[in-house]
């Protein structure tokens, strides 16, 4: 929170210097209630969130702030700043400085090359895809040359995944991760750097990326504490259209992953996917595989991990009712997460949502939470 407090005045100072700005103010108010049928419908979440998006547009610059106010049944009132950055534009180059979410890759709901922004895992992977990523304090430079973009991201301040509290239903082993970053000071040598070359064209979109980073996921040490290790990544993704199908792929080679206190391995992580329309249903399917290359027997991970995801959505009643379902199925220790959701637009600005998260299986990524299957409602007012 300290870094954000320091950043805000700096941004406001710059704002005051921008000549001829144009202010835009928008946001949303959301109520989110979830109950656990397996635990006599006890509340798993009761949360009210107020999100604001403030934008100033100048001729060759822009400033964006997105503060939020959250009142949660467990943590009471908290103030956050999802993003706070300055954009500076020139003919062939854009520069973005500040707290920002950076998204890579073509996969949906799976993080392969999408490793720049850490994740908010306090509620496992259940937050919407647009809510799960955290901002990082970074300098991002994009240089454009016709259809190609060259991007460099420098992150001087490490931000890890936000892990669930020890008493959370999403923390099966009741682990306290809170001190995992205590040994990572803010210094040049502790910074992270990423590079990406991307190209969008009528025939194919693709990108190639690489990075030297911290593992956003904490790992146990021999002392029983938790810490983060350095990792490297090289990867890429593509999407193209074949007749009425969009074919997508993404893959990465990751080095230096600690799966326990002493065992370090490299792994390949890749995905193939297809998007299509069937009887006015928009459908998507992905196959994801993760394989450890220099595998040694251990209790933490299997050498091969296979997952498929299936997505379908369709709008009804003049597009006022949206039904969607997103499903993960993991094949090792067969387990799954099924997430159907219905969204009804009471008006353009008021939406009511109802859905459930169904965890199936006894173990594995999803099966371990089989007591946490949940029914929820959301009401969202946008302005």
């Amino acid at each position, binding site marked *: 929170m300290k870094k954000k407090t320091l950043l805000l005045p700096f941004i406001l100072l710059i704002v005051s210097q921008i000549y001829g700005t144009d202010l835009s103010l928008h946001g949303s108010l959301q109520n989110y209630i979830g109950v656990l049928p397996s635990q006599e419908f006890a509340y798993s979440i009761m949360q009210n969130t107020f999100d604001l998006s403030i934008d100033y547009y100048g001729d060759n610059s822009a400033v964006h702030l997105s503060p939020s106010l959250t009142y949660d049944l467990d943590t009471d009132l908290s103030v956050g700043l999802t993003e706070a950055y300055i954009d500076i534009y020139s003919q062939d180059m854009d520069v973005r400085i500040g707290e920002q979410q950076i998204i890579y890759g073509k996969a949906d709901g799976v993080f392969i090359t999408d490793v720049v922004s850490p994740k908010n895992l306090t509620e496992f992977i259940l937050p919407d895809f647009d809510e799960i990523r955290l901002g990082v304090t970074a300098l991002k430079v994009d240089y454009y040359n016709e259809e190609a973009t060259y991007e460099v991201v420098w992150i001087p301040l490490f931000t890890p995944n936000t892990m669930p509290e020890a008493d959370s239903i999403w923390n099966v082993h009741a682990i306290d991760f809170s001190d995992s970053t205590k040994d990572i000071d803010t210094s040049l040598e502790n910074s992270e750097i990423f590079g990406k070359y991307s190209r969008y064209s009528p025939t194919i979109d693709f990108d190639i990326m690489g990075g030297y980073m911290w593992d956003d996921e904490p790992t146990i040490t021999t002392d029983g504490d938790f810490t983060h290790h350095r990792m490297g990544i090289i990867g890429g993704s593509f999407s193209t259209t074949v007749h009425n199908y969009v074919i997508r792929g993404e893959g990465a080679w990751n080095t230096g992953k600690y799966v326990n206190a002493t065992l370090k391995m490299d792994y390949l992580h890749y995905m193939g996917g297809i998007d299509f329309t069937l009887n*006015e249903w928009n459908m998507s399917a992905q196959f994801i595989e993760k394989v450890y290359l220099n595998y040694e027997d251990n209790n933490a991970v299997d050498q091969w991990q296979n997952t498929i995801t299936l997505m379908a959505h369709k709008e009804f009643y*003049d597009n006022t009712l949206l039904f969607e379902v997103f499903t993960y199925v993991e094949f090792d220790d067969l387990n799954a997460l099924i997430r159907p959701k219905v969204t009804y637009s009471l008006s353009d600005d008021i939406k009511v949502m109802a859905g459930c998260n169904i965890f199936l299986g006894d173990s594995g990524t999803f099966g371990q939470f089989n007591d946490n299957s949940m029914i929820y409602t959301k009401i969202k007012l946008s302005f």
Partner: protein
Amino acid sequence: MNKHRTTHHFMSIFLLLGLFPTTVFAQINYSAEQVIDNVYERPTPEDQKAELTMTLENSRGDQRVREIQQYIKDDGEETKKIMFFTAPSDVRNTSFMSFSNDNEENESQWIYLPALKKVKRISQGNSSDYFMGSDFTYDDMGERLPSEDTHTIIGEETIDGVHCIKVKSIPLDPDYMYSKTITWVSDTYWIGLKKDFYDSDGALLKTLTVTGYENIDGYWMITNSKMENIQKDHKTLMKLDNFVLNAGMQDSDFSVRTMTKGIR
């Protein structure tokens, strides 16, 4: 011209013999294909910017409004379009980009979802989907190639004092979302002033009516139109204003960079 005289001569003989299956319209000097080609080839600016407002109205009279800024560049071979959604609030800053040419196989479409911070390539199979809850499908919003249908002149009528040729068009693709369309084409402005769309069962589904058009900088531009879904009793009013034509837009304005930050 000689070719037309010869055609009319043979038509008269067929009529006398009672063998010609359809009515002949002596005042019409165009074939159905020429009428549709003339609409398709009507001079348009090389690039244009306009503000589009769509008002959706259901059977109870409830209205919802969508606002879009659209930019189009057409160099004669390829049409590039980019749309920025400005209202309602939950779709603000979403943008849609398409590149298309005479070969529909080469159409490419992308959507930028600001909440996901991602530009996604989307499938052309969505062309029969309704655009933002309106009564226009994505396909209705674009230009349909004349060669995708067979055309027949079926009559002539006057709409608001403007003489129109009625053309029936039947798609070559039997799986196309419409079984046929009937268009009332002004042979003065080469604008389709009215169009009926029939569903796969042959029943009237929708009627498009052009309610406003203006000559702007020498080009006939449609400014107001209404699409009425007869079966659902739902309609969409479309208004285009603040046109800026031939502003010298560059190909680089139609890019992923522009989708994510807007045209500046």
